[in-house]
């Protein structure tokens, strides 16, 4: 497949860029933060996005979606990255809807996908337990009990936990913490008995949360897919999630790089624009080459999801590792090249590095994915 956007996709990109610049820019993020908004995102805006079809952009038409594929979702995520737009698009659409679409029964898909696509329901994945992304270390348990299961455990860093309607809880049905296999995915109401959530505000001013599950009862039909395939399903969802996060990070990098280049052209010191200094020019040019690589691996990976490529895991880890590395470099240089003003809260550039680090860490950073890339390459 040609590694370019087609006309429809280019139109979507322009439309998303225009909408987000107007309604969900860095200024909007700042306002959400400073008003200490209870929800942590704008429900009205999210409804508008859903009305445009974004919440169902990768969901098949049969379930109320637009069926634009992950390339479509990636385009929107990239623009959200550029604008640092806040919404449940990552938690509910990129991650949860993907899990349901890939693993859910027909009844589960019917029940949830249209509700996610319409923006009416928010679902989020409750996976992480320790400081790092390490799915195989899952200790939360789901113990068979009659027709259903009883789930207990504690989850941290659950995106949008306090505003979600449903959780997809990863819990161990077999084996020990450390085993890659034996994991199941369970649909749990956030308000079910035994579930408690606590909001955590992250450095990027977004919602995360801690979820405690105390002997929560779920029926058998709340298992996503089958228990046998839980671990494989989870890996597939995480691969897609990491590619989507990379698309968002790419947008973030491009925007902060472009802002930095503008600053280098405008800002004068020692009687000249600082962009004339070759030391900065060479670093800028190196970053440019890096960004070109990041662009390539993101579009290649998004296309690979839609094409059902069988090396998706390798590509997903390459994508997240590369883009995380570029994001670290570009966001650091954005501050350094802006100098003192880049350190002030008043100036917007600092917001980019904050979101960058959270997105880098979510579902594994450069270290995690470079290691996984080597392992998947059999060395």
């Amino acid at each position, binding site marked *: 497949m040609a590694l370019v956007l087609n006309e429809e996709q280019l139109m979507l990109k322009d439309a998303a860029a225009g909408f987000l610049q107007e309604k969900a820019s860095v200024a909007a993020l700042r306002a959400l933060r400073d008003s200490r908004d209870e929800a942590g995102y704008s429900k009205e805006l999210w409804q508008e996005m859903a009305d445009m079809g974004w919440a169902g952009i990768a969901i098949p038409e049969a379930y109320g979606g637009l069926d634009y594929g992950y390339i479509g979702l990636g385009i929107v995520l990239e623009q959200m990255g550029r604008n640092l737009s806040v919404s449940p698009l990552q938690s509910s659409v990129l991650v949860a809807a993907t899990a349901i679409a890939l693993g859910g029964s027909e009844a589960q898909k019917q029940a949830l996908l249209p509700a996610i696509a319409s923006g009416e329901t928010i679902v989020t994945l409750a996976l*992480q337990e*320790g*400081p*790092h*992304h390490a799915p195989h270390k899952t200790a939360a348990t789901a113990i068979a009990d009659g027709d259903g299961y009883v789930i207990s455990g504690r989850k*941290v*860093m659950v995106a949008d936990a306090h505003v979600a309607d449903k959780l997809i809880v990863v819990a161990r049905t077999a084996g020990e913490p450390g085993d890659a296999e034996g994991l199941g995915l369970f649909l749990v109401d956030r308000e079910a008995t035994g579930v408690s959530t606590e909001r*955590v*505000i*992250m*450095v*990027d*001013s977004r919602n*995360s949360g*801690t979820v405690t599950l105390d002997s929560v009862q779920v029926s058998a039909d709340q298992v996503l897919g089958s228990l046998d395939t839980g671990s494989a399903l989870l890996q597939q969802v995480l691969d897609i999630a990491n590619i989507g996060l990379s698309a968002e990070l790419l947008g973030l990098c491009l925007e902060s790089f472009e802002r930095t280049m503008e600053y280098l052209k405008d*800002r004068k*010191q*020692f009687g000249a624009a600082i962009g004339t*200094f070759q*030391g*900065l020019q060479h670093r800028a040019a190196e970053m440019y080459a890096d960004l070109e690589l990041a662009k390539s691996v993101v579009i290649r990976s998004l296309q690979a999801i839609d094409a059902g490529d069988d090396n998706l895991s390798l590509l997903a880890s390459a994508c997240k590792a590369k883009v995380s590395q570029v994001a*670290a470099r570009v966001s*650091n240089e954005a*501050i*350094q090249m802006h*100098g*003192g003003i*880049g*350190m*002030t*809260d*008043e100036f917007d550039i*600092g917001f980019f*590095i*904050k979101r960058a*680090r*959270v997105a880098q*860490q*979510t579902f594994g*950073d*450069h*270290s*995690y994915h*470079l*290691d996984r890339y080597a392992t998947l390459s059999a060395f």
Partner: protein
Amino acid sequence: MSELEQFRLETREWLEANCPAAMRVPEAGDDDQYWGGRNPEMSHPDQKVWSDRMGEKGWTTPEWPAEYGGGGLDKDEVKVLRQEMSRIGARTPLHSFGISMLGPALLLYGTEAQKQEHIPKIVRGEIRWCQGYSEPGAGSDLASLQTRAEDQGDHYLVNGSKVWTSYADKADWIFCLTRTDNTGTKHEGISFLLFDMASEGVTTKPILLISGYSPFCETFFDDVKVPKANLMGEEGKGWTIAKYLLTHERAMISGFGHSSGKKTLSQNAVELIGMDAGGKLDDPVLRQNLAQLELDAMVFGHTMSRVTDEAKAGQGLGEAASIFKYYGTELNKRRFELMLSVYGEQGLAWEGDAYDNGKLPRAWLRTKANSIEGGTSEIQLNIIAKRVLGLPS
């Protein structure tokens, strides 16, 4: 018993008697630092007691001349004092830009009257100083400063503004670079003034940083009258003093981020991440990055020792401060980036007691300024290239 041993005994005794118990507990955070001044801020009343007692003996500045209130100790005695303070875990009695920055310059460039007036108050923590260097829009090009000091006969009239003035809102006096002459090159015509922040026409406004808090202010001067006697050094020659102080500041900033005897980052990583089957940290890429960091930090430590030793042996390196500033701050940024990797996504929480109110990410963000303040890394590289390596302009 040698005189030095005698001194050690007396010091030990005095410290035992005079250092309050609360001042032997490690500082829990920045709030526990005591900065003195006209309206000192305290988290514990003994902070002032301890600082005053030490100030009285001149031991807040043990190596400064006794005639100005300093301790008048020689190097060996200073070392003994530090050892004895460290033995009982005594806190630094007084944090002060007067001590770390202005004082050494005053002793070198000040008039006798200026020394007599200012140094004793610095030693005793009576006056808290701030530094008026950077200006909005000047950035690394410090010498392009525009704050004007007009000669009005017996005083200067100061107009302009400064930025990045640490603790300007809490300081009593300022040492400030101003322009008294516009006709020469930008390095000429700069004058170094000392004045009271309570003077009419001085206002300050805190700057909020991306880390969410900040010691920095913008400072505005609107027809501030500064007596001529407050000029330090010659009129128009302030750049010499400024450079001296900058070198001093560079050495200070590069000292940031040294582990304070707690666990190393790799030890923390082992606890948080665990080991693999082969007994190695269970994140091989992070492991390599940590090893490189800790190795570099160790060798950087050797370098600081070596340069100190060379200076003592008269084999001085000259421009060592630029290397320290450049390498030390870059190392510190690397260290905090790796801390984020070690502490993972949870390390990025910004609020809530459970997450220490974002202490880690706030400190991480703060390090980003290390390579900007006090001369950017780029400036340091320019200095090394031109002054040390002799590469042409």
